[in-house]
């Protein structure tokens, strides 16, 4: 896997969430995603960025455009040092409903991504990695 573009940005407040959407869109366009795929990854990024601000006490995003063979993709790694997620299974539970409340962010973002991983230790923080491939 080759990393073509790599940038890091803070995810600490509402304005940062807007900026995350913009930057992820730029990477997605650069990777040649069609409009629907762009929208999916930007929306997934928005969900996790918001979680990072609201529940993680703020954190960072590492945004990469990657290439594996002929395929290009965009990979996002959100980290925070917040309280962590106590019940990961519950947070990821798939509820295909009109959605309200906690947890939709994670499961929703997972549905919008090709690859998705969450590592969380209560009291230490959370790392969410997601990726979408063209």
């Amino acid at each position, binding site marked *: 896997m080759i990393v073509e573009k790599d940038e890091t940005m803070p995810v600490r407040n*509402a304005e940062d969430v807007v900026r995350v959407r913009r930057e992820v869109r730029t990477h997605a366009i650069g990777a040649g995603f069609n409009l629907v795929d762009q929208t999916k990854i930007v929306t997934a990024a928005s969900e996790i960025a*918001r979680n990072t601000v609201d529940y993680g006490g703020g954190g960072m995003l590492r945004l990469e455009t990657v290439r594996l063979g002929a395929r290009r993709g965009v990979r996002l790694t959100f980290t925070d040092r917040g309280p962590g997620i106590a019940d990961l299974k519950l947070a990821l539970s798939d509820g295909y409903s009109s*959605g309200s409340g906690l947890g939709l962010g994670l499961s929703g973002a997972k549905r919008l991504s090709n690859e998705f991983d969450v590592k969380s230790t209560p009291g230490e923080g959370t790392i969410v990695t997601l990726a979408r491939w063209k």
Partner: protein
Amino acid sequence: MEQIPILKIGDCLLVSIQVDMHDRLAMALQDDLTAKIVASRARGVMIDISALEVVDSFIGRMLNNIAAMSRVLDAVTVVVGMQPAVAITLVELGLALTGVRTALNVDKGLALIRRLIEGGEDEFDRRKG
């Protein structure tokens, strides 16, 4: 702080969201709209999201909330202009926004509001044909 403008057209309120809103702006819009519905005794609310390229669960919930609150205040809400990519993403996300009425554009939205207010017709009756 910026505010999203709310226009009054007859007994309807029209909101056109042109910017990528951050959360505070979205919450302000919600409060603003509710206040204006009461103040102007509006019967219809139209939210034009044709400029929104991303609608995530937060904005989705905001739309649901506005629709619910306006219903309590005896006004109908119609969301218009959703972009196809946004619709597909929302559905994948699991947010079908079932509590919100939708129309393709402003014209159809106004026609729908008229039908709902004047006909007293419920959308479900119309579906049964």
